[in-house]
Each structure stands twice: as structure tokens, then as C-alpha cells.
């Protein structure tokens, strides 16, 4: 705020320090995990590092006693991808619906918020009970999928709300004016404009599912997803293999986020480049 002078007030430095400490607070513990995952084969669960190695990364995938990590990965990732896809489609559709008034809109909104706030454990208990009563065995691709969706859909809906409230309706009216059908308007006008929001929903869908633990608990059936596997390992913490697992799962999350954000950036820059090229062509032609 440059209302008195252009120099920064003393509160800036204090708050900047608080912010910096906060970032250290956020990243510090994770940094320890990353470092400790390179623990030597004879090292323990805390510092100091007893030599460095990739031993524990290997242990993740090869030894039986650390659990079925590879299997858990093979379930978590496809599950997350399915959740991502369904969340995007269902949230987008529901977001479009909420632009107009319809009976039950308020009810559905509050149910979605409630689904967000309810403790995940309670929900998984209920879902597990339900499947048990109907005599359908819970599986990661059915009951767990639904449980994950009950968590990601409200998030997706809220994001779509934010995105659509900023969308200017005159774009669609202009398209309609020029002869586009509803479907064409959706495909060629609305979706390209809200694409960054859709990517955001996809991002949430993937990572929320990938990291979801309480809601998965009674709904995955006999074979664990990754967070459940991690939970099993924490209750018998015996080796730095756990830290290695932490590093690997974080790396995967990170890759997904980078891909999502880069694609948003690419879309924006592609649009800018196309616009500049068109402007140049127009200038050259005139």
C-alpha cells in the first residue's frame, strides 16, 4: 500500500518473516522424509543418515514384508483416473444445471456440502454396511469408487460454481445469434473458456482420490489402495521403506500437478500466440 511513502512499512518485514517461517514449517518435515528415504541399508528411522542408498526404494517393490506396494499402486492409480474422469463429467454437467433454477437445487447443494463436511470414516462405515446388507462384496472399483466420488464431486461442484459465476453469458448468446446449436455452443464456446477450471477439477479429482484414506477404509474390499497400505505400514513402523514410499507417492502427485498446470499454461500461451499470429496476418494483409 503506497499511501504514505513507497517504502515498505515495518509490518511488511514482520509478515514476510512469518510467511517464510510458515513455508519452512510446511516443507521442512517433508524434506526430512525425502532425505531419510535415501537412508543406508543399516540406517534407522531417524537421523543421522547411515550412508546413503536407494536400498529402501528397492525394498518397496521387492520384499514381501513391506506389504503389497506394487499392487496398491496398480489399484490406486487406475482408481484415481476413473475418479478424475467421472468427477469432471459429472461436475461439469451439474455446474451447467445450477446456472438455472430447478426444483431441488438448494437441497442438492446442501447435500453436497454435507458430504464434504461429514467425517470420512463415518461415511465409509455406512457404505460398507450398505454393501454388506445387500450382500455385494465391496471392491475398489465399485464401493471405493463411489466413496471417493462422494468426496470429489462436491469439490468439483464448488469449483464449477466459481468458474461459471465468472463466465459472461453474452458469449453464449453471441454464439446462439450466429447460428450455433446448444451442443455446438457448449463444445466450441463454453468448454474452451472454462477449460482451466475443468483442469482444476481433474486435478482435484485425481489427487483427492489418490490420497484418500478414511473413505476408502471399509469400502475397498480385500485389496488395499495405496493410502491404506501406508496406514498398515505406519502401524508397524519398522523401516525407512515407509519414507521411500512417501517420496515416491509425492513424486507422482507432483508430476500430475506439473502436467496439469503446464497444460493450462500451454493453453493460455497457445491462445496468445494464435492471437498474435492472426494480428500479424491482418496487419500484413491491410
Amino acid at each position, binding site marked *: 500500500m503506497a499511501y504514505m511513502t513507497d517504502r515498505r512499512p515495518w509490518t511488511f518485514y514482520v509478515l514476510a518473516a512469518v510467511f517464510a517461517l*510458515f513455508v519452512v514449517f510446511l516443507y521442512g*518435515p517433508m524434506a526430512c522424509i525425502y532425505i531419510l528415504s535415501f537412508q543406508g541399508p543399516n540406517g534407522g528411522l531417524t537421523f543421522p543418515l547411515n550412508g546413503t542408498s536407494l536400498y529402501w526404494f528397492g525394498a518397496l517393490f521387492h520384499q514381501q514384508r513391506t506389504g503389497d506396494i506394487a499392487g496398491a499402486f496398480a489399484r490406486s492409480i487406475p482408481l484415481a483416473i476413473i475418479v478424475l474422469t467421472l468427477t469432471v463429467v*459429472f461436475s461439469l*454437467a*451439474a455446474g451447467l*444445471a445450477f446456472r438455472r433454477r430447478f426444483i431441488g437445487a438448494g437441497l442438492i447443494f446442501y447435500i453436497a456440502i454435507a458430504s464434504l463436511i461429514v467425517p470420512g470414516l*463415518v461415511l465409509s462405515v455406512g457404505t460398507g454396511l450398505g454393501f454388506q*446388507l445387500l450382500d455385494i462384496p465391496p471392491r475398489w472399483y465399485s464401493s471405493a469408487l463411489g466413496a471417493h466420488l462422494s468426496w470429489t464431486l462436491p469439490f468439483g461442484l464448488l469449483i464449477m460454481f466459481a468458474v461459471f459465476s465468472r463466465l459472461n453469458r453474452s458469449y453464449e448468446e453471441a454464439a446462439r445469434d450466429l447460428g450455433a446449436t446448444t451442443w455446438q455452443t457448449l463444445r466450441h464456446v463454453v468448454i474452451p473458456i472454462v477449460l482451466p477450471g475443468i483442469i482444476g477439477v481433474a486435478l482435484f479429482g485425481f489427487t483427492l482420490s489418490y*490420497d484418500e484414506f478414511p473413505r476408502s477404509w471399509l469400502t475397498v474390499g480385500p485389496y488395499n489402495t495405496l493410502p491404506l497400505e501406508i496406514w498398515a505400514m505406519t502401524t508397524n513402523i519398522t523401516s525407512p521403506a515407509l519414507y521411500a514410499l*512417501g517420496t515416491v507417492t509425492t513424486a507422482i502427485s507432483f508430476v500430475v500437478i506439473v502436467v496439469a498446470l503446464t497444460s493450462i499454461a500451454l493453453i493460455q500461451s497457445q491462445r496468445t500466440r494464435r492471437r498474435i499470429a492472426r494480428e500479424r496476418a491482418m496487419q500484413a494483409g491491410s
Partner: protein
Amino acid sequence: MKLAVPAKAVPYLEVAPLAIVLLLFFVIPMAMVFVASFFDYNMTGIIKTFTLHNYIDLLTTPTTFDLYLETVKFALIVWAVTLVLGFFVAYFLAFHVRNPLIAIGLLLLCTVPFWTSNIIRMISWIPLLGKYGVFNRALLALGIVDKPVQWLLFSDFAVIVAYVHLFTLFMIVPIFNSMARIDKSLVEAAVDGGANRFRVMTEVIIPLSKTGITLGSIFVITLVMGDFFVVKIMSGGRSASVVMSVFEDVNLLFYPPAAASAVVLLIIVTLIVSFILRVVDVRKELTG
């Protein structure tokens, strides 16, 4: 092929998939829990007869009250810490960082850890706070203490640190969002009227961030009250939470008392949330 769908029916079709999923995987499970809470049980499983004794047991044992006290205690402490911390971080990002792109970048920096599983982030505190952990080593090396500090880990302190670590972001994002919407000319008008920086904060910024503060508070409080694993691991088994008792009952396959406990918890959480919501119309803000 053209589908002749009447325009009025379209919103219903669009919202149907989401509504159906929520019906099947939220409404019905909650109904299950509610129904199960009235069932009887024994060592072998559920007996489908109506009984109120789950509730009676629950509400008459003193441990229930202690458990709630413990959980609410944590919820309030964590709420206070995350509110102050989250408010000032959001304030810094919204008002002291001049370039809006940098502000968003710094906010993203804070959100990246969120994408790692909560369990891993929680256990990452163990090598830091333990007897032979980084903090104790540093304190010993600097000579501030002459033996390792015990209460850093497996204590209330550790639980609160872990909660703050995991949940402050849920305060920062809504508050930052509210603050970013405050028209800068309002701040100037306040200065023009004689307000110093502190009074600008109390007279203009805090009132106009009320929505963000409310949303953040709801998130943090419900997350803490709904947690079971942070408290279990970080307190070393010394503390318990309400959901933890649900977890333990379910592990023993005692569904009915677990369900009753869950229902009571939900009622209490709903009361807390509606109390908070009397302050602001959340739906209007969100769909705004």
C-alpha cells in the same frame, strides 16, 4: 440424430449423475448409519431389533463426555492457531505482495504440500520431533537443554502441530479469496478518513473477510472433529478422539454403538456449523 429434449428437463438431466452418486454414496450410507444405530448387537454381529440402548449407553457413560471434551479442546485450539496464522499469511499475500502473479505463485507454493497424503505428512513430523530427532539435536547442540525434550512428540503438542500443519491451508485459501475481492479503493478511502494500518485492518479488512473466515473455520473445525488417525499416532495413544472410538468399535465389528456414536457426533458438528453459519449466507457467496 437430434434428441428432442424439452428445455425445462435439461437441468434435471444435467444434475442427475451427480445427484444419483450423492444419493447412493452419501444419503444412503448415512441412512444406514442412522438405522444401524438403533440395532442391537452381540459378539457375533448385528441383531436387527430396534433398541435405544446404544444411545443410552453412549450418553450415560462419563467417558463419552471426556472424549468430546478432548476432541472439542483440540478443535478449538487448532481453530485459534490456524485462524491467526492463516489470517496473517492471507493478509500478507493479499495486501503486502504487490504483484498479483507473485501472490498467486506464493499461494500455490503453500498448496503443493497439500497434494501429498495426510498420513505421510503427519508421520514426517516424527523424525523431527522425536527424542533423537532434528529439534532435540539442535537444542542439545545449542546448549539450550541438556537432555532431549520429551513432550515434543507423542503428546498434545505434537497433535496440535500436526493438525496445524495439515489444516492451515483450509483457512488461508478462503480468507485469501475474500481479501482479494476487497476493492483497493476502500482501503484508500479508509486511509483518507484517517485510519492507520491497524485500523484499516480492523475496520475494513476483517469485516469484509468475514465469509472467508467463516468458511475456513467450518473446514478446520469439522476436519479436526472428524479425524481419527492424527490424534492416534501423534499422541502415541495417550489421547483419543470421538471418531477414534468409532474406528475402534468398527474394528471389533461393533457396528451399532459405532453408528450411534457417529450420529451423536454428526448432530453436534451440525449444531456447531449452523451456529457459525448464522453469520453469513454461504450459498450466495459461493455461487455469487
